[in-house]
């Protein structure tokens, strides 16, 4: 029977999901490229303008600010998550009672809908009633305490910290799973050979964790680079574009100012970096 041939069966089965993805991912992706080449005010027909939108971006100082912001945000948050996640994994890689409960609780920031936990941070950093500042003042910081979301530098630091807070458990718990696969004999052998704590970490733990660190980091970089919701809720990209990222800026232009073509060009500016990362991770996932 024809249906029993593996090729026929496979392609018949995969056709519905592949058509779905072609219609709602493939088509919008190509259509986005077309939009970026058009002057396309919302609710009007578009006119083809070639690369004009991209030239506008290149001459736009805010666009460059956004580019720098996105790289700083991604780099700093990823580094913090990596180092913090490694510390968390090492601290959790000991035997103690209620370990599973602690692990479950530590993952909560990663589970809870981002927007909802971010609103809690917005309130914790409120200009008038910030609990963080009230605690700082109680410990002797001069009143009224830092303006976390009002000062450009502090606002960037704040969104980096909150992104780290949300993503760190994912790093930590994944690395913990990696640590638990390292056979204890390796540490014993290293100890017999005279390795100290730091050397055991440097020459046993780190090399064996490298594949997991790499894959988690690629995931984290991709989704931090294209982050939207956290910044939208906390600062809307302000003050004075100090925290505006590609995604929030594209949103402002397309949804706020109604310039779909120009907005699409800003969103597509993410593509070169994202494409590199996605190709790297795809190849890596296929191998692993």
């Amino acid at each position, binding site marked *: 029977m024809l*249906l*029993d041939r*593996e090729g026929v*069966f*496979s392609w018949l*089965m995969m056709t*519905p*999901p592949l058509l*779905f*993805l072609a219609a*709602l*991912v493939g088509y919008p*992706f190509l*259509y*986005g490229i077309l939009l970026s080449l058009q002057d396309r005010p919302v609710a009007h027909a578009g006119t083809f303008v070639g690369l004009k939108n991209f030239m506008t971006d290149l001459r736009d100082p805010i666009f460059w600010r956004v580019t720098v912001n996105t790289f700083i945000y991604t780099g700093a948050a990823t580094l913090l*998550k990596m180092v913090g996640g490694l510390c968390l994994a090492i*601290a*959790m890689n*000991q035997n*103690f009672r209620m370990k599973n409960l*602690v692990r*479950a*609780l530590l*993952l*909560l*920031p990663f*589970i*809870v*809908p*981002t*927007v*909802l*936990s971010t*609103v*809690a941070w917005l*309130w*914790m950093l409120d200009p008038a009633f910030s609990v963080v500042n009230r605690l700082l003042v109680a410990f002797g910081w001069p009143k009224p305490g830092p303006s976390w979301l009002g000062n450009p530098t502090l606002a960037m630091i704040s969104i980096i910290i909150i992104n780290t*807070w949300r993503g760190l458990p994912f790093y*930590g*718990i*994944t690395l913990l799973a*990696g640590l638990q696969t390292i056979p204890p004999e390796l540490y014993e052998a290293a100890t017999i050979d005279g390795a100290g704590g730091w050397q055991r970490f440097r020459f046993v733990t780190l090399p064996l964790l490298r594949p997991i660190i790499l894959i*988690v980091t690629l*995931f984290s970089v991709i*989704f931090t*680079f*294209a982050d939207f*919701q956290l910044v939208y*809720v906390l600062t809307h990209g302000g003050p004075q574009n100090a925290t505006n990222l590609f995604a929030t800026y*594209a949103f402002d232009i*397309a949804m706020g100012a109604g310039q779909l073509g120009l907005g*699409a060009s800003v969103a597509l500016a*993410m593509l070169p970096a*994202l494409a590199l*990362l*996605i190709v790297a*991770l*795809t190849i890596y*996932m*296929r191998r692993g």
Partner: protein
Amino acid sequence: MVTGHGRIERIVRLWLPVGFFLVLALFPFYWMAITSIKPNAELYNKSVMPLIVHAPTLKHYVDLLSNTSFLVWTWNTMLVAMVATAISLVLGAMLAYPLARMRFAGAGLIAMTVAAIYLVPQPLLFIPLADVINRLDLGNTLTSVILTYPTMLVPFCAWLLLGYFKTVPKELEEAARIDGASRLQTMRQIFLPLCTPGFISAGIFAFTLSQNEFLYALIFLTKSAVRTVPVGVIAELIRGDVFYWGQLMAGALLGSIPVALIYSFFVEHYVAGLTSGSVKG
């Protein structure tokens, strides 16, 4: 035997760092919870010690449920998450099964494509998608998000299920084939029932990702009656510069409970899926 020295070392090496991470992870939720039961007189009075509640009240919850459409948003969120998850599990399995079990030309290419689509973040697609949704006249309908959430969830479920499917031994299927069962029968009656844990894992992730989604819901749903919880809370409890902090925190807490509850029931599945190295952070 634990000596005094050993106990101090254990505190420094274990409880100090673990305690630090626990406080860091949980304080925002504690703050959310106590804010939601503080009366306004306490919330906006700087001379009151803020870390505890002096006169707890449920007023913010009553206001939230009676003055806003929070219950409607909750219903919308649940409905969308369940339908989108169901669609994604079915379509995801239809991709994963041939990739896991069959040999055919193009399998490698399809696997790469699915993995790549899985990694495409929403901000790359939201502007053209908004236009597509408009042209289909689906703005302000739950259909708009039910259709678009699976664009992230199908590749994700396919990838997670693919990993699980490969761990299931082939012998039972081969036996069924020898007994004369067709490929479809073998898949539905022999193979899929064996994969229930994989479906639970993928389903939980898809469900929590749906609950977490914000960008598409923000753009496609602008009327209160069709909003989901994250968008409703942000759009309707923050009006200009006026914040209703008590209600906001009550809404954030109530909105987090379904996810937290499901997570607590299936935490082992969740961690297993997370650590299989195929979940986005």
